């Protein structure tokens, strides 16, 4: 009984029905009152605006004679629309044709009667229909290959049943006046298909328990780390503060707030979890930068956030860009699940701009990061070869400590990312295998969710180890082999009898071996 894949889908080929009232009565059209149109192309409409044709889908399907229900465990529901367009000599599809849909989405509670639907949202949806066709398909019966359209995105699946009614109105006067108006150039539609995607309940369960177990562990670790820092005689270093922040953002990321969504309706959960992830990555990236910077042994501008402001600004820009995009997309979707930034030209420009800026800053960030890491490596090398600090035991230990500390984290980070990337490719490979000629559920099917839990666990372990390894120790040392943190160097030289000193974890760790 392994964990299922993170998400699954259900396909709905929408039924076409006739509605003489053209939707003016506000009545819901569902399967049981549908006057079905079996073949759309053979249908002769009696109206000009075609509101009498309704595409309907009830979600979810009934299966094995049992009415399936959506559960709050699904966390989100999103719908993708496929438009099937057939080639027709008379009614041609023109590229980038605007498609306008009148969508009504209703819901039903478990208690209410079979076809007692309540209004959830009504919306006019405009999308751009992008289709291509091969030259040899350009004959009657040939079909276009159309891009799918995002239809809706619900941040919580709080009702068991949904019903969708879609109308595609056409204004023939407007079409004659300006053939760029909506629905004038969409070609000959043969049907609509809706694909609904949700997170699997099984995956949610595994995920939530992982989070629930991880949160206290990380929290305790963080608390311990915080205490250690507080017990120091000096002010915490910038690096220590960065680690503290990293731990804090991980706790925020881990916190299993999703449990609440199982009993209450929280549509903004999707947005919150996006924000939490964004926060974590921002802090992680900043941490890497600070970590690399703090190991430039000869650089004197350390332990000061201001000296990183240039590089940090890249991270801030990147995350701000994504934040704005996410707030617009997911934020407005709270009110109108059918909203998409990409549907309007200005919206998609803003979205493109935000994402473009973020991408550029991220790339710039990584270039600077690698540059910095390379500098640290070269410093280490030169220090090692010069052996300048051999004379002073204290100094030597310090430098060695710095080097080992850096190398360790470097190795560890590389290992973690290598594992994650390997797992990702394993997953891709598994998927490719699945879609071979003889598709069978095999060992690699479950690896998708294993990948997510694995990557998540790795992330946690990474931060936990950071908290543990880089916590300042406050043991007391006597005699000459006192280990002092780098910033207290000068003080120590003047006052060797200082009894209360602290060192970094790695220097302590190293002490017995170097002694």
């Amino acid at each position, binding site marked *: 009984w392994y964990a*299922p894949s993170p*998400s*699954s*889908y*259900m*396909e*709905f*080929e*929408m*039924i076409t029905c006739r509605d003489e009232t053209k939707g003016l009565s506000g009545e819901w059209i569902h*399967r049981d009152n549908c006057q079905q149109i079996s073949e*759309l*192309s*053979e*249908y*002769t*409409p009696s109206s*000009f605006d*075609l509101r009498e044709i309704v595409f309907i*889908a009830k979600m*979810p*399907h*009934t*299966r*094995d*004679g*049992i009415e*399936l*229900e959506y*559960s709050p465990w*699904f966390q989100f529901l*999103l719908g993708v629309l*496929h438009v099937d367009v057939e080639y027709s000599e*008379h*009614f041609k599809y023109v590229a980038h044709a605007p498609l306008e849909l009148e969508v009504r989405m209703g819901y039903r509670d478990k208690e209410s009667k079979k076809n007692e639907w309540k209004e959830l949202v009504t919306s006019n949806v405009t999308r751009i229909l992008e289709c291509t066709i091969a030259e040899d398909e350009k004959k009657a*019966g040939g*079909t276009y290959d159309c891009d799918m359209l995002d239809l809706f995105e619900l941040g919580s699946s709080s009702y068991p049943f949904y019903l969708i009614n879609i109308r*595609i109105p*056409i204004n*023939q006067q407007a079409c004659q006046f300006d053939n760029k108006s909506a*629905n004038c150039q969409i070609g*000959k*539609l043969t049907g609509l*298909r809706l*694909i609904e*995607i949700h997170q*699997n*309940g*099984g995956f949610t369960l595994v995920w939530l328990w992982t989070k629930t177990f991880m949160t206290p562990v990380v929290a305790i670790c963080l608390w311990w780390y915080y205490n250690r820092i507080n017990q120091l005689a000096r002010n915490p270093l910038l690096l220590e503060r960065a680690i503290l922040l990293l731990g804090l953002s991980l706790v925020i990321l881990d916190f299993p707030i999703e449990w609440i969504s199982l009993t209450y309706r929280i549509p903004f959960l999707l947005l919150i979890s*996006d924000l939490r*992830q*964004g926060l974590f990555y921002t802090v992680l990236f900043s941490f890497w930068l600070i970590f690399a910077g703090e190991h430039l042994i000869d650089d004197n501008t350390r332990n000061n956030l201001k000296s990183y402001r240039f590089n940090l600004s890249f991270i801030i820009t990147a995350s701000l860009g*994504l934040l704005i*995009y*996410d707030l617009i*997309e997911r934020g407005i979707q709270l009110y109108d699940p059918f909203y998409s930034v990409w549907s309007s030209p200005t919206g998609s420009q803003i979205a493109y701009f935000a994402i473009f800026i973020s991408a550029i800053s991220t790339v710039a960030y990584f270039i600077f990061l690698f540059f910095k890491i390379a500098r640290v490596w070269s410093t280490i090398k030169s220090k090692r070869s010069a052996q300048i600090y051999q004379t002073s035991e204290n100094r030597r230990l310090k430098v060695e400590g710095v080097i080992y500390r850096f190398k360790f984290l470097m190795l560890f980070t590389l290992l973690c990312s290598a594992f994650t990337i390997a797992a990702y490719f394993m997953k891709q490979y598994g*998927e490719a295998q699945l*879609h071979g*000629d003889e598709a069978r559920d095999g060992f690699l099917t479950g690896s998708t969710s294993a990948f*997510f839990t694995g990557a998540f666990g790795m992330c946690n372990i990474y931060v936990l180890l950071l908290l543990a390894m880089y916590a300042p120790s406050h043991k007391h040392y006597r005699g000459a082999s006192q280990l002092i943190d780098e910033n207290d160097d000068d003080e120590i030289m003047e006052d060797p009898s200082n009894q209360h000193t602290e060192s970094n974890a790695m220097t302590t760790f190293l002490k017995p071996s170097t002694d």
Partner: protein
Amino acid sequence: WWLLSKTDTSSANSGSSPILCKNVPGLTPQQKRMCHENPNIIKYLISGLRSALHTCEYTFQREAWNCTLTLPGVGTSPLQIASRESAYVYAISAAGVSHSLARACSKGLIDDCGCGETPQGSGSVAVSQASSRSSSDFVWAGCSDNVKFGNTFGRKFVDQYDRQHATEPRSQMNLHNNRVGRRLLVNAMNKECKCHGVSGSCVTKTCWKVMPKFDEFASRLHQKYQLAKLVTNNDQKLTVRSSPSAGSSGRSERFARNMDASSKQMRNELIYLDASPNYCAIDVKDRECGENCPNICCGRGWRTTREIVDEPCHCQFVWCCEVKCKTCKKLVERNYCL
């Protein structure tokens, strides 16, 4: 074989009532029972069969054999001969049934469709237990499949007769070709994906399979028809004797090898036992032959008639259909065999 052609004739009176099941001759008792128990499903099964035969006729429009299942002139149905044509008909009707059932499932018109993992049981034992299991399975891992139900039900119904006679070579051939049709349909499905990770990134991605248009599938099957393999009956087993067939010059063709028809290489190939009858022996008089007259009319010549027909023209179209048209007169040339 009577089953297929007979159901077709019965479907002409748009049967939807359970009476239909009793009136169709040639059904086995089990098929009658299934038909009686699932009138709703049978409706889509029949429409699938009809569209399969329709597609067959369309595909073979321009060939000597035009997919007629009953030939008035000769008296024997081509299906009674185990030729490659009947292999094609069996495969396309099995696939047509699956296709139609799967579409009805994805439209939500059949309540009994399964989720794909477990083949649906007879449903007589422990209904309440099954119901709670099924919906909790849905919450746990979703329910995505439409095709498996079509294949399962189609197999149960269509293969019924031949399953009972599974020792006969002809039935083995039919079963094999039915299976090929269904498998080909599943393999012809396209994969589409949607990314829905953080901010729409591809960290999480969901993929699904899209049923191909039936015409598309039919043209693939037509290729298989042209490559169909002759098999011989060797003590209850159908084996392929590789004959140096015309056109194919593969290296393997040189070796005379005997291959089990159920082997892996043959799983996607249509098989037949006998050579096709001479379709020119049938009366092709007055058959419309279009552009391919020398072939269709078997060298008996053809005549061309010119007719004036009314055709809709200057039509106004909206996205679904035509709204209003004028009628125009048009001169059409048509060729008929002599």
